[in-house]
């Protein structure tokens, strides 16, 4: 497992003092201060969310630097609320998919499709719903924004959790069955711990993915009305509209600070704590360390609080539910089972057909086949763009990644950097790109495309670095002993070794590029508005116009393209890579 910001041992003085077992009084104090600070911030932010809607118009978003910390807080709260919602979603839906074969049949493809639908699409249709739920209050709009962020975070977490549940080690599963673990106990003692490392890694990726859309998600347009929630995203939107460089720079700084803080205060301690759940027996390269975690371990205050919080769970666990007689599985084996499966499949297909028909009717009400053909043409344009860019990015970054990966000292330094670059929202740089294009009078069709791959090419880089560093030493030595060099080395050692890793990175990069096309193909700076011909620009434009049928059409076409790509290219490639190139 690779984690963000890998730290070396014994670095900082605070950490060392804590580790040396200095008075736990200091640990208590620091822990109390941190907890109190976080609690105050959270309550302040939550309180603000419950204010009435009208207040948004009386005190609109301004570019006053004094407001920036407040905006940063609101945005962070939204993202964490979305993360919590994603976690709940993961625990329910992924568990259901893992335990029930019938549920799995619909849930997995549904998740796949939802993952491919561009995030902004959800926003348009759900904002009215939420605003209706909480009329006149900011809470409705907040919920809409949180929901939109949720849709950018939840899917990969659900997939990871599902995957972990399906690959629980057989011997551990047998032990829990032997001792008659109840479903809850099995979940808490076996499945959750086993899934924890992968889930946490995906949570970190989700958080960084969420930042990319925050700019677009905090200024919500419903038809003619635009509601701008206070937050870093709307600050940035305003700065771009007013062509204020200083404000953009301030926002970038605030974002970096926020990312750094929650990385240190939230994710690193959790990663350090979850290290004990790693199942692989081989010795870890470096144990993840976190000064917050060290403090938390020493602080008796925290131990007391935790014990108090865990008391109700302990009581719950002692409740003995009456045991249901264990139903023998495979009671409906043979023809009966198949018939049931067939019926269920038929039902699902019928529901799908119904949904497609409804969608088609909605679109066909306002648009004709000509429109559909035009949109598909735009989709092809974007597809060509994505393909070309991926090819160029691969040609550049694969050799660099292999070079770095083969040199452990460099790999250790550069891989966290590449991960950070992948997490950093690249759309912050778009205004500068617009300026450059306008200044040198370049063709937006070609040059705007670069923006699409700007944020996602790093996935290729850091996965290739990981692959090259995983190349076993004796294969490298065999290559040197037999004098394998140059193109032969690449053909027989380098490229095959990194191939599975490259495919993983490419899948993520390609999906990310499609999603990015919505914000990258139509970019503005103040009054300057640049647009490239493509599906992303189309969707962005019609979303702004509030043209629902076109939005639906655009999203449907993009989803079909992405899913088609996945099924036709990436999945088979991944299976091939797994079969042929795995270092066993």
């Amino acid at each position, binding site marked *: 497992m690779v984690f963000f910001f890998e730290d070396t041992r014994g670095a900082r003085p605070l950490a060392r003092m804590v*580790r040396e077992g200095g008075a736990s009084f200091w640990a208590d104090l620091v822990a109390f201060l941190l907890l109190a600070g976080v609690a105050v911030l959270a309550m302040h932010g939550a309180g603000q969310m419950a204010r009435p809607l009208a207040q948004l118009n009386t005190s609109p978003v301004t570019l006053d630097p004094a407001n920036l910390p407040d905006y940063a807080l609101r945005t962070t709260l939204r993202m964490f609320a979305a993360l919590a919602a994603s976690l709940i979603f993961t625990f329910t839906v992924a568990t259901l998919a893992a335990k029930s074969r019938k549920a799995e049949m619909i849930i997995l493809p549904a998740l796949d499709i939802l993952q491919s639908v561009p995030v902004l699409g959800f926003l348009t249709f759900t904002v009215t719903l939420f605003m209706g739920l909480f009329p006149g209050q900011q809470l409705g709009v907040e919920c809409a924004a949180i929901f939109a962020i949720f849709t950018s975070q939840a899917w990969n977490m659900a997939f990871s959790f599902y995957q972990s549940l399906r690959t629980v080690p057989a011997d551990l599963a047998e032990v829990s069955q032997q001792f008659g673990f109840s479903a809850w106990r099995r979940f808490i003692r076996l499945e959750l711990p086993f899934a924890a490392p992968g889930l946490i890694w995906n949570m970190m990726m989700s958080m960084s993915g969420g930042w990319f859309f925050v700019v677009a998600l905090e200024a919500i347009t419903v038809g003619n009305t635009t509601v701008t929630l206070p937050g870093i995203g709307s600050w940035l939107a305003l700065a771009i509209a007013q062509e204020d460089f200083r404000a953009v720079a301030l926002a970038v700084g605030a974002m970096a600070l926020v990312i750094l803080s929650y990385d240190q205060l939230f994710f690193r301690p959790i990663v350090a704590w979850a290290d004990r759940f790693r199942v692989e027996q081989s010795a870890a390269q470096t144990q993840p360390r976190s000064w917050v975690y060290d403090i938390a371990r020493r602080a008796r205050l925290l131990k007391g609080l935790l014990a108090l919080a865990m008391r109700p769970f302990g009581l719950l666990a002692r409740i003995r539910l009456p045991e249901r007689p264990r139903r023998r599985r495979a009671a409906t084996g043979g023809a009966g089972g198949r018939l049931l499966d067939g019926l269920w499949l038929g039902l699902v297909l019928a529901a799908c057909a119904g949904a497609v028909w409804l969608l088609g009717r909605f679109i066909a009400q306002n648009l004709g086949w000509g429109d559909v053909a035009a949109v598909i043409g735009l989709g092809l344009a974007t597809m060509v763009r994505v393909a070309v860019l991926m090819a160029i990015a691969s040609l550049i970054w694969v050799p660099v990644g292999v070079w770095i990966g083969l040199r452990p000292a460099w790999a250790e330094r550069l891989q966290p950097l590449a991960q950070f670059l992948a997490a950093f929202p690249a759309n912050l740089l778009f205004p500068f790109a617009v300026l450059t294009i306008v200044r040198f009078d370049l063709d937006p069709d070609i040059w705007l495309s670069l923006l699409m791959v700007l944020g996602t090419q790093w996935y290729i880089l850091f996965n290739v670095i990981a692959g090259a560093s995983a190349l076993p030493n*004796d294969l490298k030595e065999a290559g*040197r002993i037999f*004098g*394998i*060099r140059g193109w032969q080395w690449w053909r*027989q050692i380098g490229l095959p070794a990194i191939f599975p890793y490259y495919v993983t990175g490419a899948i993520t990069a390609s999906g990310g590029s499609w999603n990015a096309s919505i914000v990258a193909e139509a970019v503005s700076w103040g009054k300057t508005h640049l647009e490239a011909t493509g599906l992303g620009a189309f969707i962005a434009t019609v979303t702004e116009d509030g043209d629902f049928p076109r939005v639906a059409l655009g999203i449907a076409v993009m989803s079909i393209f992405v899913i088609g790509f996945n099924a036709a290219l990436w999945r088979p490639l991944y299976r091939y890579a797994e079969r042929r190139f795995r*270092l066993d």
Partner: protein
Amino acid sequence: MNNFAPVFAQTLPLVDVRHVRHVYGKGSGPGLTVLDDVNLTLHDNEIVGLLGRSGSGKSTLLRSIAGLVQPSEGSISFPRPQGQTTVSMVFQSFALFPWLTVLQNVEVGLEAKRVPPEERRRRALAAIDLIGLDGFESAYPKELSGGMRQRVGIARALVVDPDILLMDEPFSALDVLTAETLRTDLLDLWSEGRMPIKSILLVTHNIEEAVLMCDRILIFSSNPGRVVAEIRVDLPRPRNRQDPAFRAMVEDIYARMTTRAAPGQPREGLFPGAGLGMALPRVSTNAMAGLIEALAAEPYNGTADLPQLADQTHYEVDELFPIAEVLQLFRFAELEGGDLRLLPAGRRFAAADVDARKQLFARHLLACVPLAAHIRRVLDDRVSHHAPASRFIDEIQDFLDEVSATRTLNTVIQWGRYAEIFAYDENASLFSLDNPT
């Protein structure tokens, strides 16, 4: 046997290693001397074995000769004038490319030499045939068993017609039967002169394998690696393990490997370093108890011949010696010549029940292992009876490198927990005198 070249060319050795010294480690801090003043010459038509335990630098020496690693001091030269002396290597872990077929794997070296495709294929097929893998040309390594994979490795090394074949513990990753088959096949090919190579340099930690295969054996000590003895094996081939001369030679080598190079040195100096800086191997109390019980039982009744013991327990030198040496450290047993002899304390241990064993072990641990006594003393002296592991690691690291220091501390932790002289909390990295809550 298979060399008809003129005599004068044979007087020049194939490889000449002089005063090679190899030090690992970064600039700052004490480096780890892996090889110290090693001299070696390799002539035509011989199999030379490098025998020693892990950490004796034999693999490093092999890789130095292969050109994969540069020695810190000394020289490695290939005196033969005509052309370059070519070397080829067979790896312990086979090192086959998983995405190439057997045929492609074998052709790899030829392709690097720009041999045209038809000739490449012909030679590769011949090598595969020679090594007995006919019919598997289009198989992938993951479809093959360990023995077959190593055959591919050998074929790949032979097909490039090297002068010297370097083998780095080639059979240690295989089970006993497969290893034996491969050994005899290799020796047959060698005796019949069907391999194009001039000499073989073999690294091993299996004494019987060395005596079975080699014409000359260089015995290495460890920490740092030095050549402590060079033995000529004149037994006629094919060699028989049950032959008295064979057994005598094995016995002799065991004896040489368990005594200090310089006579008159106190016997407890088998572990490098002294006091807190004594580097301990990772030996568990279970293994120690098992060896003591095996010694005390029939047919040894307290005194065991090491080769016989190794045979019975299926241990190789690398595994048996550390346990025996730890028993000697604890004064439970004594190494003498090629024998391991149980001392009175060891006999008491063998006869005692669980609790009595723990007490006996605890007494000897505190008396004989300075680090354990030191930890206990520190815990007793402190008011809180707590001490962090980092404190001891820092102390040990004044004498040892990081890896050895961690290993030593982990070993002492395991021993201390068994003896119940202290408790250790892994999560907090804390020693204490409490029982676990």
